[in-house]
């Protein structure tokens, strides 16, 4: 079932949560809505579900080409998993999952035996058959998540929407559930949209990622596309740590201060002031000075799992620069705080000046 959102705007008082958003999602896709909190991603999900009505006279929501804008949430056959699950607290797990089937009008309602069989099958699918008689308060976060998902799937939704599905879970459970959801989506092939603020989650799970900021869609693409070809500093910055430098471009050469850096990426401004973005793992640290290296002072050396994160200070401007190196590299370099080092950017991405993260450039200016 495909989803199409056309020119949707939504305001809450003076706050513009969605600003003329359009988006098309293909049948069977797994799409992530990614952005910082307050960017409008949850509002967009709720508009698709029918839980929020967009501002008149703005556009339409189409499910499989059919305009459902006039229909309430109950008539859209959309499965929705709430961030805090919203399980019916006074019902058992079984009754929670059976609710959607039992709530159908008498003519379309399955018999009690059919409902029992369907719930049993769903409990089996989400691997919690042994919890059927428990109440939500007696379940762990991960178990509640599975109940919420089974409940949403019970009504055979055309589309599955998940609001921050892993937000309330701890890191280990989250990883397990992520893998499981990927498999489940592959098995069920139901069009799925989930909201997240975790870029790793979006990149790992989704077929396509929709990046949102301040009520607008900044970029839509596969995880590789948005990561490798970010359209602006916001996308670049949101998909991973980034160091931003003021740079100057002249005659095809890029300078950060007095240092000339190599830029492999052909796109970018032709000449003038620019923002040069460098990922921490693209900064090569060494003790050899040169015209192509930034002189920095080591402030902290942090061992974070498989990598070593080095916090550095720009000697000229005093600004903080972050670099990441493999553990082995640090063992041979043996950097320590207070030391002077030289950083050579391996990959630099240029954006026109005046587009710091969070500020949307005019369409076509990038």
């Amino acid at each position, binding site marked *: 079932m495909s989803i199409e959102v056309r020119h949707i705007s939504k305001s809450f008082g003076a706050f513009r949560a969605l600003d003329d958003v359009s988006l098309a999602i293909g049948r069977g896709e797994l799409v992530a809505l990614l952005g910082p909190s307050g960017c409008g991603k949850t509002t967009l999900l709720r508009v698709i*579900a029918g*839980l929020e009505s967009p501002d008149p006279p703005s556009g339409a929501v189409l499910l499989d080409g059919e305009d459902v804008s006039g229909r*309430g*949430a*109950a*008539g859209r*056959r*959309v*499965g*929705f998993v*709430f961030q*805090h699950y*919203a*399980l*019916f*607290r*006074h*019902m*058992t797990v079984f*009754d929670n999952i059976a*609710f*959607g089937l039992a*709530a*159908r009008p008498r003519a379309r309602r399955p018999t009690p035996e059919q409902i029992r069989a369907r719930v049993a099958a769903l409990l089996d699918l989400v691997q919690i058959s042994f919890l059927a008689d428990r*109440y*939500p*308060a*007696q379940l762990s976060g991960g178990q509640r998540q599975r109940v919420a998902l089974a*409940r*949403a799937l*019970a*009504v055979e939704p055309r589309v599955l929407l998940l609001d921050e599905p892993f937000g309330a879970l701890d890191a280990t459970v989250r990883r397990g559930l992520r893998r499981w959801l990927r498999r489940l989506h592959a098995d069920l092939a139901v069009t799925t949209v989930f909201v997240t603020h975790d870029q790793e989650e979006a990149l790992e799970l989704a077929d396509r990622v929709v990046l949102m900021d301040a009520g607008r869609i900044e970029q839509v693409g596969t995880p590789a596309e948005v990561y490798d070809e970010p359209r602006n500093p916001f996308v670049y910055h949101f998909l991973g740590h980034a160091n931003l430098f003021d740079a100057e471009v002249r005659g095809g050469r890029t300078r950060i201060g007095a240092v000339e850096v190599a830029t492999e990426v052909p796109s970018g401004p032709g000449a003038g002031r620019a923002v040069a973005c460098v990922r921490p793992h693209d900064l090569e640290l060494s003790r050899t000075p040169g015209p192509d290296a930034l002189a920095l002072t080591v402030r902290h050396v942090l061992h974070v799992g498989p990598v070593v994160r080095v916090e550095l200070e720009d000697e000229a401007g005093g600004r903080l620069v972050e670099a990441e190196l493999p553990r082995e590299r640090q063992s041979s370099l043996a950097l320590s705080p207070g030391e002077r080092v030289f950083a050579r950017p391996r990959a630099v991405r240029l954006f026109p000046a005046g587009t710091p993260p969070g500020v949307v450039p005019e369409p076509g200016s990038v």
Partner: protein
Amino acid sequence: MSAELAPRRATGEPVWLRRSLLIAALAFLVVFLVLPLAVIFQQAFGSGVGAYLRALGAPEARAALALSLLVAAIVVPLNTVFGVAAAWAVGKFSFRGKAVLVTLFDLPFAVSPVVAGLLFVLLFGRDGLLAPLAAAGGIHVLFALPGIILATLFVTVPFVARELIPLMQAQGREEEEAARMLGASGWRTFRHVTLPNVRWALLYGVVLTAARALGEFGAVSVVSGHIRGETTTLPLEVEMLHAEFRGQEAFAVASLLTLVAVASLVAKHVLERRSPRPPGVARGGPA
């Protein structure tokens, strides 16, 4: 006993101070609450069980009891429906003027019951604003059952709504939204999701409404006209007996009202213990 009552040493106050405060509080409770309660029953049974039963069996007392029960039987369901509807509107929807509405619910608490009674006298008395309406319908409001019901309705409006609104607001709308997403109608959502989640608070609100409906004096006194055996509720009957120096009979009837009060306090205790946690957690709870 002192070991059980003594609070954990969370404060640095010396033992003697805590003990004296505790004793002072208990003494206050005994003098102002327990003793009067005991006196009521002592007076009621002062002339023996026979006199007690005779006082309750008197036609006026029985008529007063019947009237009070009738009024409660009409007022409690009406205000329950109103309270649930009001709490649902306030707790689950956003609209303009919500804060004003919530404040209005408290009006009967703020207004003296006597003033409330006078309000109905003004509305339905001679030249009253609504008097032509009542006359057209052939209904006598003042000094009759409709007036007593209206006055009791007015003073018991807040109880159910006030119990439900904070709870419904705390529970939020997500479960209702989930029910809608699953295709449930508005009525089904209310019946199977909203109502079960607040049932203990609702029951408590009903208990409070009933207790107040049976016990209301001021507002009813103004509109009733004190016609013995016709428009006299239990509290009015107590007052009239007392004014006629029939103390033992007055206390016998008063003991009925006291029993209502004690019963509602017990109910409150039981319901408050049940309401905060999801009732289903205690296995075998009515699901």
